């Protein structure tokens, strides 16, 4: 708090402040570009909205593949492990570039060369790896005795997973997954590098047009308006779970 207050007081005293204020916190420009930014943000929301369920499903499938115990399914497990290791080990922006430029570069016909498709694929592949890890910790966190109780009734392995283990595991990892999806909402902006005119790119267009950085500040504020409440809510859920468990 003290640091924050000091910045508030000291920064305006800096010699360059008037210039910075003019090019970053220009209220006229802010008012002028805000509706356009908000409109572009709808594209971010849309990309998020169709990516999220895909990420959830793929992440769940990969987590389940890692849990299969049958020896015959060893290749499947190995593949799932490799997949999560690789996509968690590469920066998102690299995946976006490689998939987003590389695959359309193969000369696919329309609409299969769309950056929307391959940008989404890049996000889904990356984030599903993280979500899979979260699900896996959730599944492993359910006590062995729950599995034993279900199996002892004569339930199959898949029913035990579906009705007993997964519902508990998914609930347990809601806060962790929420944090991932908050990060995803921000990383949608990375797709601007391969084409879609979403908020970050729109802000860039305004910046060039008006020779002013205020559009970026506007974009940041729009992101914060979404991510801060979502982060607070995830923390609230987490602390609620902690209390319930203690």
């Amino acid at each position: 708090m003290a640091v924050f207050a000091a910045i508030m007081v000291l920064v305006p005293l800096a010699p360059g402040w008037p210039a910075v204020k003019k090019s970053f916190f220009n209220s006229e420009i802010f008012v002028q570009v805000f509706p356009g930014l908000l409109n572009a943000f709808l594209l971010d929301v849309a990309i998020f909205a169709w990516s999220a369920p895909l990420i959830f499903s793929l992440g769940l499938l990969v987590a389940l593949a890692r849990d299969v115990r049958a020896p015959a399914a060893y290749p499947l497990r190995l593949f799932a492990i490799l997949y999560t290791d690789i996509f968690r080990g590469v920066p998102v922006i690299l995946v976006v570039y490689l998939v987003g430029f590389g695959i359309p570069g193969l000369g696919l016909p329309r609409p299969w060369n769309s950056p929307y498709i391959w940008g989404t694929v890049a996000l889904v592949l990356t984030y599903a790896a993280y979500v899979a890890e979260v699900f896996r910790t959730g599944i492993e966190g359910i006590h062995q005795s729950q599995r034993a109780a279900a199996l002892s009734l004569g339930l199959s392995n898949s029913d035990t997973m579906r009705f007993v283990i997964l519902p508990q595991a998914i609930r347990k990892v809601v806060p962790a997954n929420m944090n991932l999806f908050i990060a995803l909402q921000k990383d949608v902006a990375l797709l601007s590098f391969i084409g879609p005119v979403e908020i970050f790119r729109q802000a860039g267009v305004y910046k060039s047009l008006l020779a002013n950085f205020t559009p970026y500040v506007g974009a940041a504020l729009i992101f914060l308006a979404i991510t801060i409440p979502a982060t607070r809510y995830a923390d609230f859920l987490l602390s609620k779970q902690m209390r319930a468990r203690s």
Partner: protein
Amino acid sequence: MARLETHGLCKSFGENMVCRNINLTVNDGEMVCLIGASGSGKSTLLRCLNLLEPIDDGVILLDGEDISTPGLDPQPIRQRIGIVFQSFNLFPHMTAAKNVMLAPWRIHGRRHVDLQGEIAALFERFGLADRMEHYPDQLSGGQQQRVAIVRALAMRPEIMLFDEITSALDPELVGEVLDVLRQLRAEGMTMILATHEMGFARELADKICFLDAGAIVETGPPERLFSNPTEARTRDFLARVI
């Protein structure tokens, strides 16, 4: 109904041999109690009988049929042998009724509406009629354990295994769970109990098996085994717990 036998059953965890050459026979309608110090292998033996643990050597016969062959589908066998655990292990995200209905629904394909009457009767029988829609964390330990028993009974098992089902309960709740066992006993259920309730075992069991370090050291009817044990290890154990 059912007769369960083991011949030369052995089970190890790594180097640790937890069941040593177990020969046990439980006849139809009998109640057999396993007693012995903590770590003597009672839980492991029960888990082996329910096929939750694979055995290393020996056979398990259910009505004369070998159920311990590797590669056998354990599901239909487990449906015939119910088990109740010390720690209840109810599914916390389901109501008591849903806990009980899950297996009959999934395994016998019976819909909830068809099961409702039968399940309600089971809850009624064990004094839980007004607890069907409660979640496990809204129930006392004794109620949870009774629901766990009802859950196992709903599959109409031929044999029930009970693993120290009163050990995790507050003393004042032990009675209500033991009453359920008395009731099942009176109805002629074949049962194997691992228990520390010596008074209860003495009162109701047909046969007591004393386990030590994974082996059955002594077997006999309760009157004889409790008042006149032949093995020194049995005497020592009984002197400590009674």
